[in-house]
């Protein structure tokens, strides 16, 4: 039977989900979600889920306290009351802002529902499995190195008690062969990831902090969604200005470099990476490139186009290009590649003028369901 509190609890969760859905656009455009990420959960601050009442407190906080100190000394905010007698009738002591932990899967589901994202059909390959052994049970034969002392001792003790050979004054337990128990394992298949996201970002001088923030938020959401679609997902990060290199996640979001922009350098690194580590026959590959669209030269742009045409687009499930508006960039690149690939489904382009566009841009990228 489902207990009553579970029902009430799931109603509460539903309300929370509803609130998140209503405010999704706000949450998405606000960057602090990414900072609030735990291992599998995000904690979302939820200011107003309590019940309004006529209450006092129009002015500032004040009250009576107890302890040392002179007038004018600061008073630490008391921790919430601890000790006995919680659960008195009074609810809502003080105003605690509610922090709700939401799992990334749940968040992705909300995102999916809200944006109407289709589920992704994985590429034909069977997902790869590796096997993992876990010790879960006991058996009566096995190598001595796996002998379970506790189980063996217990059985020996039981036997000696039953047969009357146990002496309380001299409690020596001697296991015989039938007493011995060995740990035994089960082999579980562990699905191995067969999807990878390759993020590329332009870190040339023209990309400011705001632009990078946009990229970070957007990639967080793309990550969240794709992760919910694949079990285990690899992410790789490439930054480029006039040259490109693969970097760690942290570096990707923090670095500020300067210099010119040669987009082809990133595409080359990406193509190499795919060739070496992620054969397209086995992998679902997603590549996203963010830039302000200010490429060095027309020549370089044509190199990019040919790289895209010959290598990247055929290899990827989808290639996304997001152009973040920047006061310095010319924004030419998006026009060039739109012209070069007028109707290629695998290439998705999106222009992001500010934080409010992030949601639409995510939708643009993910609506194809590839």
């Amino acid at each position, binding site marked *: 039977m489902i207990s009553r509190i579970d029902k*009430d609890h799931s109603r*509460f969760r539903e309300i929370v989900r509803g609130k998140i859905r209503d405010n999704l656009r706000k949450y998405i455009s606000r960057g602090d979600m990414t900072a609030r990420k735990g291992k599998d959960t995000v904690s979302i601050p939820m200011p107003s889920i309590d019940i309004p009442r006529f209450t*006092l407190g129009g002015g500032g906080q004040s009250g009576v*306290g107890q*302890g040392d100190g002179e007038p004018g000394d600061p008073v630490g905010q008391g921790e919430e009351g601890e000790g006995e007698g919680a659960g008195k009738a009074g609810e809502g002591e003080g105003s605690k802002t*509610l922090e709700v932990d939401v799992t990334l899967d749940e968040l992705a589901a909300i995102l999916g529902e809200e944006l109407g994202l289709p589920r992704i059909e994985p590429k034909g390959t069977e997902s790869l499995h590796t096997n993992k052994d876990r010790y879960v049970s006991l058996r009566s034969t096995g190598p001595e190195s796996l002998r379970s002392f506790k189980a063996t001792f217990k059985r020996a003790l039981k036997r000696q008690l039953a047969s009357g050979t146990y002496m309380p004054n001299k409690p020596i337990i001697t296991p015989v062969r039938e007493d011995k128990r060995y740990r035994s394992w089960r082999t579980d298949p562990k699905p191995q990831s067969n999807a990878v996201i390759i993020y590329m970002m332009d870190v040339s001088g023209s990309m400011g902090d705001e632009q990078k923030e946009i990229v970070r938020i957007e990639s967080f959401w793309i990550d969240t969604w794709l992760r919910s679609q694949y079990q285990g997902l690899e992410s790789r990060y490439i930054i480029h200005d006039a040259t490109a290199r693969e970097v760690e996640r942290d570096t990707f979001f923090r670095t500020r470099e300067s210099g010119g922009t040669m987009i082809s350098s990133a595409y080359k690194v990406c193509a190499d990476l795919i060739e070496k580590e992620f054969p397209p026959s086995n992998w679902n590959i997603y590549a996203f490139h963010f830039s302000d669209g200010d490429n060095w030269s027309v020549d370089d742009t044509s190199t990019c186009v040919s790289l895209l045409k010959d290598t990247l687009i055929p290899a990827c499930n989808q290639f996304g290009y997001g152009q973040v508006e920047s006061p310095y960039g010319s924004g030419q690149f998006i026009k060039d590649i739109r012209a070069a690939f007028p109707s290629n489904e695998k290439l998705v382009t999106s222009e992001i003028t500010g934080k409010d566009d992030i949601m639409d841009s995510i939708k643009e990228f993910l609506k194809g369901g590839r």
Partner: protein
Amino acid sequence: MAPIPQYLRDMQVEIQGYADEFGLDYFTQIFEMLDYREMCEIASYGGFPVRYPHWRFGMEYDHMIKSHTYGLSKVYELVINTDPCYAYLLEGNSSVDQKLVMAHVYGHNDFFKNNNYFSRTDGRMIDVMANSASRVRRYMDRHGVSAVESFIDVCLSLDNLIDPWAPFRDRAHDSGGEAGEDEGANGRLRNVRGYLEDYVNPPAFIAEQQEKAKAEKEASKRKVPVQPERDVLGFLISHAPLESWEADVLGIIREEAYYFLPQMQTKIMNEGWASYWHSRIMTERAMTASEVIDYADVVSSVFATAPGQLNPYKLGVELVRDIEDRWNKGQFGAEWEACDDIEEKMRWNKELGLGQKKIFEVRKLYNDVTFVDEFFTLDFCRRQKFFTFTQNRRSGELEIETREFEKVKSKMLSQLTNFGQPFIYVVDANYLNRGELLLGHRHEGEDLKLDYARDTLRNMERIWRRPVSILSVVDDKPKRIRYDGSEVTISDETTAFTA
């Protein structure tokens, strides 16, 4: 939920023996054992195993389970005011903890049974709540879960608008009992010299006065309510255009609000009393030498004080002890008050031994407000290092404001008055002769929280189905906040509401 094992039953017999020895007078006490999930579940329901379904219980539960899991806080003990009195013990607590909890629970139990403010609560509230829960479930089956639940949200938003004295008033006396006092005077002015009667009260004047009085009486007869009404919930049940299930749900919320009211009114006393008794039972009787350290550890966290808050356990127990001590030594009465020699006061001991008698009397007759008002003395305030704090307007930080006794006490009393809730009345149910509802907030120095007030007005309108206003004071200016079904407006008023 499980009955308690044998060793705890033995323990209960032992503790109950001490309670009898000390003269505690309690309802039959029943303990049950819960694991921590069940404990959190029941605690979220305010101690009652069956209540109507509502998300906020789930929210409480979420919060409690989390703080329990992360070790931030733990529900040690849970006791409810019913006859027989149920209390829950947490499985896995050490035996000294269980002993302490039992002793504490007997203190609460005695308080529930004997304190006057609890005298009108229903001893079978468990059944009452279970019955209302099944009615609410039935409404949910018929009208849909979310319709009923959102109506409960609306009702809860108003559940502090009750009259703390209503349970103690006779219903008959309540309505229209007050016969006009100055009726006999017939509007005549006072006149001691008979021969001047015609000059002081000429017939035309008398007729005019009588006419006026009659008109006033007529007007007040038509006015609903006749006098400002504090039991707003009760008023809404009888006057608002509610469907029968809605009226029933509102009634359920009101009944529970009245049930929980005495606990809010006696938080400090109740905890102080229970702590006083667990402390005496444990230290004088029940505790063994090996348990001293664990006992001290628990008690120190229960009585811990933090600068920014008031610990009701600590304040309560210290006050009870102080009263006992003063009445034992005879430190009360006119003679004591008149004495201003500090040396003599320090030595003052008439060996009256009235302490026990006095604290039992106090636990019967007082609530938090009267308790603090009468027994929170200058000496006590100094000894316990009380102060008031306030928010520094510039830095936004909380700072110690003063240690002056009068200010500390008046701050404390104002926070306890009406258990910290505003005084709200129904003033007029036919405001402006348009069927609008007018409420009045009796301003006692602190403003309403405006954003909450707005949302609450919205909920009020949902019940009244006509525009709703409240008279209040914002930043020292009388204002009227009105919600007409689409927007909230705030307008100036000439005078503030008084009741």
